């Protein structure tokens, strides 16, 4: 008892970790594809997944139908005249960051609302959670064409439409895992705390403010930060986009790079990369770290964390008198507000409803869902088949197989490189403390800024594009493997390492029996993120330009990119649908079962 406080944090056993789910959640990068693990227990897709799938693509088709077939060209947004002079880059960087923040605010509101509905309505949960699960497997860059069309249609000829389209694209890259995190937290609020809040007769708002929000906070903050890191890629991709005959160029780092590519200006690309590095560094120091450190205080468990998250910014804010004074002022105002608020009224007991109400509502709700799903599938199939024939579907599947081959090979190669390195780093706490933030930083850096450099080299040396464009897909996402493996190795129990050394286990046996099984859940998380990200990145990586030189690799990514450039909506719908199917299948048939198995073996579960 006296010892419980002062233990060496490296001495936690896996069993203890198992009893500290938040401990895991913090080190293990909570991943959207895994977040549903409490829910979808079976590996095979359920009928709800099917319903979700057709519902979604029905909606996409509707949008495509509504806007895609307008032959009248919408007012094209002029190229705002992107200036390649480096001095204007800070301004562009600011615009890019603001877009990011707007999307984050939107994601926050969305995730809280959506998760709330799912957590409190079983009927909604049945449909909305699978929808969310599919949504996060849909390649965001494939979305772009739909959203751009939609928002430009809402505000014809206005920059606002284009801005909203870009923000929405970033939103779609951020919202889903945050929503899952909140949903998961709401579902797992400890029973005793819920009972306390009921016996204290909290209002819904009080319960949210004092119980649910703080409880969801650590997970939400962590996922926000992960989302932001991933978001830079999409903010860069969504600023300069051409759909059919419409070209959007919003002032920002992304369009700066696009313009530089057009002018074959390698120097300008260098400046853009530098600007992005600075932006991410600032974001990391001013936002990411303070927020993570702040989130620590909402943790439920009482064990000290392995590495206490520290942030000089947060510390400065907390220590500063000015901030303290402002806080007092704000708190004072708030409590006055609360004091003037009316006393909680007696809750009226809910009126007794006849027993048949619930089944009847069920009937109405589920038939509505089924009807919509049927209509959605009919619409999608009809839309695609009216313009395209089955050979086109076959071609898309064939191309998807090529891209899949790339993803598998690349994830394999990246694993061979980063797993041994990550393990070596993770087992050395001092080194890990330096390397971990670096890997996170690299993961946040939008790899598409580096594409032009690679393309320049490919053009210069006349390399095979089918082979040499492939590494671009994993350029930005390989770091997820690295930092998850580092995280896994750094929480690997000391006593097991001692036991292995004592039993003189070395060489291959050490990897096979001792280390790899222990970090498997972490590795799977990283590899899955890397694979998912690579599918997404294929849309930009298989289809690149350098001035007027155009490079294209065979694959589903370039198929979608080509269709987007041509404004060919049926092909976009087809391509995105096929890619989503592949990603979903991969997650369901490979990653999730693997993760669950690894998790059971390591004993993270129960």
């Amino acid at each position, binding site marked *: 008892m006296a010892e419980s406080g002062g233990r060496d944090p490296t001495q936690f056993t896996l069993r203890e970790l198992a009893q500290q789910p938040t401990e895991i959640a913090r080190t293990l990068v909570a991943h959207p594809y895994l977040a549903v693990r409490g829910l979808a227990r079976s590996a095979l897709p359920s009928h709800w997944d099917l319903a979700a799938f057709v519902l979604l693509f029905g909606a996409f088709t509707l949008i495509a139908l509504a806007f895609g077939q307008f032959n009248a060209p919408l007012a094209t947004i002029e190229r705002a005249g992107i200036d390649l002079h480096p001095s204007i880059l800070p301004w562009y960087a600011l615009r890019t960051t603001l877009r990011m923040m707007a999307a984050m605010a939107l994601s926050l509101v969305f995730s809280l609302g959506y998760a709330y509905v799912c957590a409190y309505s079983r009927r909604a949960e049945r449909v909305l959670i699978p929808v969310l699960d599919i949504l996060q497997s849909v390649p965001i860059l494939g979305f772009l064409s739909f959203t751009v069309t939609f928002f430009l249609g809402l505000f014809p000829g206005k920059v606002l439409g284009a801005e909203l389209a870009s923000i929405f694209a970033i939103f779609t890259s951020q919202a889903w895992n945050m929503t899952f995190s909140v949903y998961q937290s709401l579902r797992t609020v400890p029973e005793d705390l819920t009972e306390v809040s009921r016996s204290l007769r909290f209002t819904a708002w009080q319960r949210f403010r004092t119980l649910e929000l703080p409880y969801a906070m650590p997970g939400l903050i962590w996922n926000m930060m992960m989302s932001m890191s991933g978001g830079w890629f999409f903010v860069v991709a969504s600023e300069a986009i051409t759909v059919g005959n419409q070209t959007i160029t919003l002032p920002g780092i992304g369009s700066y790079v696009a313009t530089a590519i057009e002018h074959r200006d390698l120097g300008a690309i260098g400046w853009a990369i530098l600007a992005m590095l600075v932006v991410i560094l600032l974001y990391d120091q001013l936002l990411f770290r303070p927020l993570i450190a702040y989130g620590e205080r909402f943790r439920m468990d009482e064990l000290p964390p392995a590495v206490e998250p520290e942030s000089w910014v947060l510390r400065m804010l907390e220590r500063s008198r000015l901030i303290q004074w402002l806080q007092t002022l704000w708190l004072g105002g708030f409590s006055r507000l609360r004091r003037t608020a009316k006393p909680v009224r007696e809750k009226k007991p809910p009126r007794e409803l006849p027993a048949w109400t619930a089944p009847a509502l069920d009937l109405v709700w589920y038939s509505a869902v089924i009807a919509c799903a049927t209509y959605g599938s009919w619409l999608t199939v009809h839309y695609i088949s009216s313009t395209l024939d089955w050979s086109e579907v076959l071609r898309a599947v064939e191309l998807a197989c090529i891209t899949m081959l790339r993803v598998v090979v690349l994830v394999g190669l990246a694993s061979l490189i980063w797993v041994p390195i990550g393990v070596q780093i993770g087992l050395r706490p001092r080194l890990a403390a330096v390397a971990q933030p670096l890997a996170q930083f690299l993961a946040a850096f939008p790899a598409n800024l580096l594409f032009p450099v690679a393309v320049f080299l490919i053009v210069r040396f006349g390399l095979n594009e089918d082979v040499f464009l492939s590494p671009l897909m994993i350029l930005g996402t390989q770091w997820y493997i690295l930092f998850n493996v580092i995280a896994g190795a750094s929480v690997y129990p000391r006593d097991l390492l001692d036991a292995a050394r004592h039993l003189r*286990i070395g060489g291959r046996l050490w990897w096979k029996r001792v280390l790899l099984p222990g970090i498997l859940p972490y590795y799977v998380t990283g590899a899955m993120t890397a694979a998912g990200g690579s599918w997404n990145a294929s849309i930009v990586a298989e289809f690149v330009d350098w001035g007027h030189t155009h490079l294209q690799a065979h694959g589903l990514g370039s198929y979608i990119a080509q269709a987007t450039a041509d404004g060919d909506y049926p092909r976009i719908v087809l391509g995105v649908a096929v890619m989503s199917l592949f990603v979903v299948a991969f997650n369901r048939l490979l990653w999730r079962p693997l993760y669950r198995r690894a998790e059971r*073996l390591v004993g993270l579960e129960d």
Partner: protein
Amino acid sequence: MGETESALAQAPVQNATPVLEARGVSRAFARPHGEPLKVLEAVDLTLYRGEIVGLLGRSGSGKSTLLRIVAGLIRPSAGSVKYLGRPIEGPPPGVAMVFQSFALFPWLTVLQNVEVGLEAQDLDPEERRARALRAIDIIGLDGFQNAYPRELSGGMRQRVGFARALVLNPTLLLMDEPFSALDVLTAETLRTDFLDLWMENKLPIQSVLLVTHNIEEAVLMCDRVLLFSSNPGRVVAEIRVPFKHPRNRLDPRFRQLVDDIYARMTVRREAGKAQVLSIGERLPEISTNLLAGLIEALASEPYKGHADMPALAQSLALEVDELFPIAESLQMLGFAEVAAGDVHLTPLGREFAEADTQARKKIFARQLVTRIPLAAHIKSVLDERPGHRAPAVRFLSELEDYLTDNAAEQTLRAVTNWGRYAEIFTYDDATESFSLVEPETENV
């Protein structure tokens, strides 16, 4: 020589090569600033065939460090360790270890866990399997071969730990508090099972080195007990246990020996009254509830202010490692005196026991400021500062001149808790700073 009689022999074979010989072993850990911290100083240890030797001491006495040095997991900073006459470099073959936390690989079944040590030795798979099954059989794990550790109870897990060690046919078995993570009943079953196997000579082991902080366990199992002092760890006494197995805990001579060892372990504080603590004195993290609880227990029947520590520990179901720090805290604060295995309340302690909450806080505050220099120091710094506020880092870095980082943090936490109870200062975790007034009162 004498393989068969080794385990039966009550008097160890002294003239043969010792199984283990450690001379002048020290271990110090480097610190970023300040002198290296000594955890083990000039320890001698000889282990003969047929012996179970116990290393008994409080946490922080370096006994686990010594065990890990013998296991070849860490190197001594000075001194030599020889196993069967050869110096130890890395884990020596023939030495097996049982861990306090079991240290089983969770992803391997019972059989695989037992086998994995043999796998490292490149044995023929069939022989490997046969030996593993035999060890599983001896240790009483039959039927659990393909269970995963998470499916087993603590006791069964530690049996796997034993089987994994025994399958290696070790000459020397090292045990690092192997029963302390188990409940009382299970621990006792495992101890007697192990002793039965040992006495019936069913084990290949020739000697055992057992680390423990449980005095009764040491007297129950060992032929010799080395008593360790803390900070730095030194051997202060060697005690022979002259009883034959199976031993009876209720035997008066057994009880007497336990009492003796208690007395020796409390000897360090005997000069209690005169001792002046320094700012850097390590404070145990003992809650004030526990302190008050022990004072009340001591003040009431049947103790009436005076108790024998082993009896007290037993009636309160506390381990030595739990009872000692509480009693010592009481001594530091002047509420009790600890000497020769006994503890008795001072008049102040009695006064505390009778007082109500507010009066208790007053007494406690007075004692804290006069007896614990660190508390007095924090209070005076806060008194002097204009804002009556000081960051915790300031005191932490002062403490780190005397203590390890962990001990410094623990000490600061301990004094924070006591200070809060006494209401002499308070601590705000968000800003990590001490202050004289409650933060809430500022805002209202």
